[in-house]
């Protein structure tokens, strides 16, 4: 019964998501593929549409500087950036550290020791003193790419979010003892949400008995994704949860926890499904095994695609204001951008919820115990 309920819930959720996702993925990937060819063009032609596309693409990626805005100086015809440089940390036969201001947004070659480094399309390559980059047939650079441990814009955002969360929830935790078991201050707003995660996400999916073990992860996960999603909607231009490395890390932790706590029943259901003929068992085993990977993979892609798509749509709509340059078109784009922003605020919460619910569901499968004579 419980299992059937869970599966139907999953199906309903994925169906709704699919409609939403496919609509956004279509727009995102068509614009992404269009961008790849256009970024090169932009450097030579510099027309408005390709500039916007390059700008959006650039925004979606991580950055070695924390830039708030940039503009073209009309007298010197050079791009001026307003923001702050961040530390670059490279592993290239030893640790190399320098400020990202040395790279000058890809226009300069940074020297560190005997090595020279250049920023090219958001990645740092080792070059010669002149900064030459060689390409292969597919226009991919062939230069040596040192492992980049830089404190990038996303790392700073994650750190700040982590700090914010710690201060916020530590404050909430302490307010209980100071105020006679009643939450006080800003944390008061989050207490019902913490309870919601416990009562509506953890307990129904994992069960009363085991849920406590996973609460730490689920709560951290939920608020981490939610806060970063919301941070991505601010004009700071941060896109953390729309980055594949971030969603990969989150999905990987869910994957590891799921399989680490998996009980005998869980593995039995994967390798030797009870209640079906033995021939089916052999067919089902690889499918279930594949499902092991697909589940976290879908988590990773879902969050990444939703947030990226949201950013692309929102930025495209804002960009339309500059393309139309007339009262009717631009104000229409403004209204559209405004409504999409509101939807995105909802999506920010929804995606955090979905990621947490599905993680809880997978943990629930892993710790579920069946009766011996229960066949399904």
């Amino acid at each position, binding site marked *: 019964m419980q299992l059937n309920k869970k599966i139907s819930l999953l199906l309903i959720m994925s169906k709704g998501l699919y409609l939403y996702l496919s609509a956004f993925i279509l727009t995102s990937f068509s614009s992404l593929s269009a961008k790849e060819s256009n970024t090169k063009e932009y450097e030579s032609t510099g027309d408005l549409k390709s500039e916007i596309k390059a700008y959006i693409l650039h925004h979606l990626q991580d950055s070695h500087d924390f830039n708030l805005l940039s503009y073209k100086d009309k007298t010197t015809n050079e791009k001026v950036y307003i923001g702050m440089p961040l530390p670059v940390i490279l592993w290239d036969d030893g640790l190399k550290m320098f400020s990202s201001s040395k790279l000058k947004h890809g226009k300069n070659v940074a020297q560190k020791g005997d090595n020279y480094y250049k920023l090219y399309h958001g990645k740092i390559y080792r070059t010669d003193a002149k900064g030459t980059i060689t390409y292969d047939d597919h226009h991919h650079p062939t230069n040596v790419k040192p492992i980049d441990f830089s404190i990038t814009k996303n790392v700073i955002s994650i750190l700040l979010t982590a700090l914010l969360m710690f201060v916020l*929830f530590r404050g909430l935790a302490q307010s209980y003892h100071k105020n006679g078991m009643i939450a006080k201050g800003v944390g008061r707003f989050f207490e019902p949400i*913490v309870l919601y995660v416990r009562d509506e996400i953890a307990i129904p999916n994992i069960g009363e008995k085991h849920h406590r073990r996973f609460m730490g992860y689920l709560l951290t996960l939920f608020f981490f994704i939610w806060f970063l999603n919301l941070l991505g909607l601010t004009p700071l231009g941060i896109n953390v949860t729309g980055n*594949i490395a971030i969603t990969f890390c989150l999905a990987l932790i869910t994957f590891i926890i799921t399989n680490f706590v998996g009980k005998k029943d869980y593995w039995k259901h994967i390798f030797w499904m009870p209640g079906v003929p033995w021939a089916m068992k052999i067919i089902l085993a690889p499918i279930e095994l594949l499902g092991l990977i697909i589940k976290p993979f879908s988590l990773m892609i879902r969050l990444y695609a939703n947030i990226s798509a949201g950013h692309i749509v929102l930025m495209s709509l804002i960009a339309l204001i500059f393309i139309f340059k007339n009262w009717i078109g631009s104000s229409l784009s403004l209204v559209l951008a405004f409504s999409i922003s509101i939807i995105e605020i909802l999506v920010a919460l929804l995606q955090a919820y979905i990621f947490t619910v599905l993680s809880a569901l997978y943990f629930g499968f892993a710790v579920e115990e069946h009766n011996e004579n229960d066949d399904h």
Partner: protein
Amino acid sequence: MEKLINEFSFGLFFWQSLIFIGLILLLRKFAWKPILDAVNERETSIKDAINAAKEAKKEIATIKEDNQKVLKEARAERESLLKKARSEGANIVTQAKDEAKAEADKIIAQAQESIQNEKRAALIELKNQVAQISLDIAEKVIDSELESKEKQSKLVNQFIKDAPL
């Protein structure tokens, strides 16, 4: 897919894992555990308080019932006491009345008796006086009339005979 792999930054993954796992551990120890403990504690205390309130309500109801019972009993007792008192009072009054009546009767009887006695005494005295007077008269009559002895005794006898007593 190729784009996704190309976009993947190992450095960012490294920092994210480090910060995120650190955050989970820190929050678990310093935030989630105390928060959930506090909330649980509060929930149980609320539950207990509700139960206690229910119990108290029940207790109050029984106390009220008892009170009602006691009140009823008291009222009944008062009623019976009053009844008793009333009947006793009535008894006392009738007794007093009877006694008074008896006393009065007694006094009246005594008075009547003493009146009778007085009357009798007065009559005896009157008789005596009448006798005396009669004697005196008789003496005088005798003195005057009876010179002879026979005449005397004849007269005496006549007098005695005529006396109404």
